[in-house]
């Protein structure tokens, strides 16, 4: 359980960018690929591969987008990053832009975080003054600048195609993939979208190398992860852990007592009972975009189900029928569980509907909205159906 914290550390501004200019673009892509860095927003797509694909796309206009639409219930680590070390995020974006050949970067900041905007604009101004953004950055031939675009309170816009629609001034409805944004994204130009935390890792990997990064974490989950811990713990907050940390060890760090259940991955994640606290947080076992919510023995599981399903009913954009109607069906099912009126047959139906939603919804919202419900049903059946 090494304390490996570096993501929230301050760095010497411009150092990584300068180093990047000394290496050729293909080599940086290889270093990131070799490091095994995967997207920190939840989906875990290999960042190096994304860079390669977007870099290889033939277009004179490309975009780098930082997904700061942190909306998953229980996640607040991107907020903490943007409050403390935004310059590192922007430098990561600049390096990425240099590699793929983009001139414009956009931070899509969720409307709920509007109060962070002024501070971020300040940081950008400072970087422009120091020639870390703007024309001919640090004496090179590379031009790049970043603007901040404000979301307007829609969870689904955290999904990259929905986010792009929103940036185009439209309803934030997800689109079918392919085409993927790396080949046809914002205004049909190749676009690389990554999470705030992912961009934060890039300057470190560029300056310290892939091997340094691979020494942390597990085989398929290299590096560290910021985890937002909330709920029934004495010390809520952001913890940087090495991938592979056991749930029970994280609970110890946050000083959780009398823990009954832990939600990992927010409303779209899973809820596990004490018997599974030996499991690990990693892409191999339980992946998470950063949300861990702890419930002690006084909590009723049906209340958690209800809160999560109401969340999805509210946030489903409604374009895919299985998601729109399915979430409603699940909210009704929670009511029946509360009244003790749910039948075995209805539970079987719920599982079928859940599979259907996974298969036929366009985006991650519909595909994952029943995860927590089904895991609670599996892990706490006796409590729910007694």
């Amino acid at each position, binding site marked *: 359980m090494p304390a490996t914290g570096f993501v929230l550390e301050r760095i010497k501004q411009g150092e990584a960018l300068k180093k990047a200019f000394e290496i050729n673009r293909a080599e940086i892509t290889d270093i990131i690929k070799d490091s095994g860095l995967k997207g920190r927003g939840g989906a875990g797509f290999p960042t190096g591969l994304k860079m390669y694909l977007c870099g290889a796309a033939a277009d004179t206009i490309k975009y780098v987008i930082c997904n700061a639409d*942190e*909306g*998953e*219930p*229980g*996640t*607040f680590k*991107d*907020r903490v990053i943007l409050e403390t070390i935004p310059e590192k995020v922007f430098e990561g974006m600049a390096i990425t832009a240099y590699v793929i050949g983009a001139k414009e970067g956009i931070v899509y900041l*969720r*409307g*709920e*975080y*509007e*109060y962070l905007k002024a501070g971020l604009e300040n940081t950008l101004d400072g970087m422009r003054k120091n020639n870390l953004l703007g024309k001919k950055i640090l004496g090179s031939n590379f031009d790049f600048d970043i603007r901040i*675009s*404000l*979301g*307007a*309170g*829609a*969870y689904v816009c955290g999904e990259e195609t929905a986010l792009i629609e*929103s*940036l*185009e*001034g*439209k*309803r*934030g*409805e997800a689109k079918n993939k392919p085409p993927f944004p790396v080949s046809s994204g914002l*205004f049909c130009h190749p676009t690389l979208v990554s999470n705030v935390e992912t961009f934060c890792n890039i300057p470190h990997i560029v300056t310290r190398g892939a091997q340094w990064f691979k020494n942390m974490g597990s085989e398929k989950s290299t590096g560290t992860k910021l985890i*937002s*811990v*909330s*709920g*029934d713990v004495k010390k*809520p*907050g*952001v913890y940087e852990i090495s991938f592979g940390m056991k749930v029970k060890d994280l609970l110890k760090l946050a000083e959780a007592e009398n823990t009954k259940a832990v*939600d990992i991955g*927010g*409303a779209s994640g899973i809820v596990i009972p004490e018997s599974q606290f030996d499991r690990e947080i990693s892409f191999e076992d339980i992946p998470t975009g950063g949300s861990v*919510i702890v*419930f002690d023995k006084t*909590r009723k599981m049906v*209340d*958690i189900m209800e*809160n*999560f399903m*109401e*969340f999805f009913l*509210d*946030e489903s*954009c409604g374009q895919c029928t299985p998601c729109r109607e399915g979430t409603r069906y699940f909210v009704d099912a929670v009511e029946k569980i509360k009244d003790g009126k749910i039948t075995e047959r209805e539970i079987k139906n719920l599982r079928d509907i859940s599979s259907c939603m996974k298969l036929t919804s366009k985006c991650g919202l519909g595909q994952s909205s029943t995860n927590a419900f089904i895991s609670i049903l599996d892990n706490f059946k006796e409590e729910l159906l007694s």
Partner: protein
Amino acid sequence: MTVSSKISKKEVINELDNILSKTNLDRGNLLCVLEELVRKFGYLNDIMAVEVGKRFGVDPNEVYSVSSFYAFLPVKKSGKYKIRVCRTISCKLKNADNIVKAIEDEIGVKFGNTTKDMKFTLERANCLGMCDKAPAMLINDKVYTELTPEKAKEIIRSYKNK
């Protein structure tokens, strides 16, 4: 911000001129323009949909369609101060329901409603990303955390005279 029950076409046109002196008419700026209008008037109405549509060269229905998608672009009359109390689980565990009750008492309307003087609208919001400092609420773009019913009432009172 001026919130009144009646917003004239002239006011809307003036404000749009003002906003568009700083923003160009790329479709990508539509959301930003609508956000500015909400900041000024508190909500979006038909006149705004028509006028914004004219400027951007899109149908008013399209403008309405976009606005109605987003929780922060209200398309019905809404108060000057939008109080959004987080309803998501981490805040709920820390008794966010009591905060709602306290605010309901203080402003005299129930959840989902606007006060008669058009000053406050009380809404629920999904996760505000303040789970480590729960319970939390937003009033317009300001965030308030680690609330107690008393603290929430005090904050609301400070807005009454604004």
